[in-house]
């Protein structure tokens, strides 16, 4: 079982607090997306899980093990980097085999698993090539294959699609999702792209300023954002915000009224309305 949990994880860079006591639990086999604007700490959180950053407080657990002080190689994780980090001095085959060789797997097994990985990511024709001879999309697939063949129960991805062109990204997104369904690894996926997050994640953790603002399924995140930030950040075109006043379970604004929360009479309200939920009707509204 490889659930992942962050327990009050804190990370400080100089005077900047990058992570403010982050708590998050990711279930075994779950596809968790960390979503947020640039500088919100999502990549830092991922790197703390990978062991590439030391945490300054709290604990990181994978399964039952506290891995907070373990180096990356002892954490049983595999990672796909934003730049792919495919080794330029090794052929595709050796790139994919790298993790297996480092873990001292027997040669026939390495051979078999590299072939399997190559089939899974349609890389068989390229095994004898160097990365420089590949396109961006192919390099990205090498990076994914290299991470997957190690059989690490936890798979980390740091914006793996952000360097692909739009069409390829669409295709690769579907491929990654299919891959996750096939291999069922616990996956932590960092992105700033809300469409990726909504279409791929089992659950999404929305981050802002080093904190997690909301963790839930894409549907709930979209329909019931925890606060104005989440509401405004998710959705394209963005959510409309309307000022209103509560009265008898009705929200009353300037020239309009909607069903509002019960009670709260006389309190000011901020109503978030998704554009697609607005329909043009007939007749006038009685004010």
């Amino acid at each position, binding site marked *: 079982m490889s659930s992942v949990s962050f327990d009050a994880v804190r990370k400080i860079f100089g005077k900047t607090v990058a992570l403010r006591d982050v708590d998050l639990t990711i279930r075994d086999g779950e596809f968790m997306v960390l979503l947020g604007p640039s500088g919100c700490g999502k990549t830092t959180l991922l790197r703390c899980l*990978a062991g590439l950053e030391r945490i300054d407080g709290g604990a990181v657990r994978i399964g039952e093990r506290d891995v907070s002080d373990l*180096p990356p*190689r002892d954490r049983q994780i595999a*990672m796909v980097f934003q730049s792919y980090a495919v080794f*330029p001095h090794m052929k595709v085959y050796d790139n994919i085999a790298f*993790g297996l060789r*480092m873990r001292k797997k027997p040669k026939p097994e390495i051979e078999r698993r590299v072939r399997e990985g190559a089939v899974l990511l349609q890389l068989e024709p390229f095994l004898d090539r160097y990365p420089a001879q590949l396109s961006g999309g192919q390099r990205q697939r090498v990076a994914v294959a290299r991470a997957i063949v190690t059989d690490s129960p936890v798979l980390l991805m740091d914006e793996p699609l952000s360097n692909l062109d739009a069409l390829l990204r669409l295709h690769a997104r579907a491929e990654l999702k299919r891959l996750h369904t096939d291999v069922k690894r616990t996956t932590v996926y960092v992105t700033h792209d809300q469409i990726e997050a909504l279409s791929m994640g089992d659950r999404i953790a929305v981050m802002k300023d080093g904190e997690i603002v909301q963790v839930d399924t894409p549907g709930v995140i979209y329909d019931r954002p925890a606060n104005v930030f989440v509401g405004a950040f998710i959705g394209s075109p963005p959510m409309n915000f309307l000022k209103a006043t509560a009265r008898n379970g009705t929200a009353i604004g300037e020239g309009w009224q909607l069903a509002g929360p019960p009670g709260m009479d006389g309190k000011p309200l901020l109503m978030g309305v998704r554009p697609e939920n607005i329909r043009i009707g007939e007749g006038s509204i009685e004010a």
Partner: protein
Amino acid sequence: MTAVARAAPRRSPSRRVLLDRLLLYGAATFLALWTLVPIYLIAVAAFSERGAVYDYPKELLPTRFSTDTMAFFVGSSGVISSVKNSVIVALGTIVLSLAIGAPAGYALSRFRFPGRDVFQLAVLSSKMFPMAILAIPLAVTFIGLGLYDTLLGVVIVHSAMVLPFVVIVTAGVFASVSRELEEAAQTLGTSRLGAFLRVALPLALPGLAAAAIFAFVTSWNEVFAATILTLRERTLPAHVVASLNQSPLYFKFAGGFFLIIPSLFFIYFMRKYLFNLWGPGK
């Protein structure tokens, strides 16, 4: 640019462009001749009969070609042993300067640590003191340490001389190797050191080779420290310099030519890296 902007039909390049080109090629030709002519004359003298060197007026083409002069040089006493010493010292300088300089360069490129900028400047400060000032105190110190007139002593001094270059070059070389590559190796099962050895080092090798060859050539050509710090264990330049007074002219030309060769090879093979370092490389 101006020619293109003009609405008139295309003509031959304007006079200005022509003048620019003329100046550029003129300057390049002048600089090339400035270095090539002496090398050429030395080569001609080294490969002519011994007597040819005293001819006047000089022949511009090697009409009296012969390996006699070079044979005489190589055969004179002390030359073979000093060449051997030079090679040992130069190789020793490569090993010592890279063993110290490459890790320092790596640290400069990868880690932020207090005093990093100061260190980067301090590395260069050793270049502030001319060897002429350092040589006497060094000789005294080396006598005390038993390093005087030993090859190890010369290796140490030569290493100190090339270290700033080695540190700065290797820092640049390692900086060009993406950090994510090493991190990827770590997530795939290597230690921090393993990631360096398997990923950063192989990728940095061409640049390290450039630094190594620079160390070799610097040591090979260095005269002053080698002359002052040795008596019997001479390197080749020190030997040539020490015997200048008693040797005939053709000996000097042959020695000069012999000393130039490695530098020529160095420049030829390392052009690419030198441009990367000092010019707008690719």
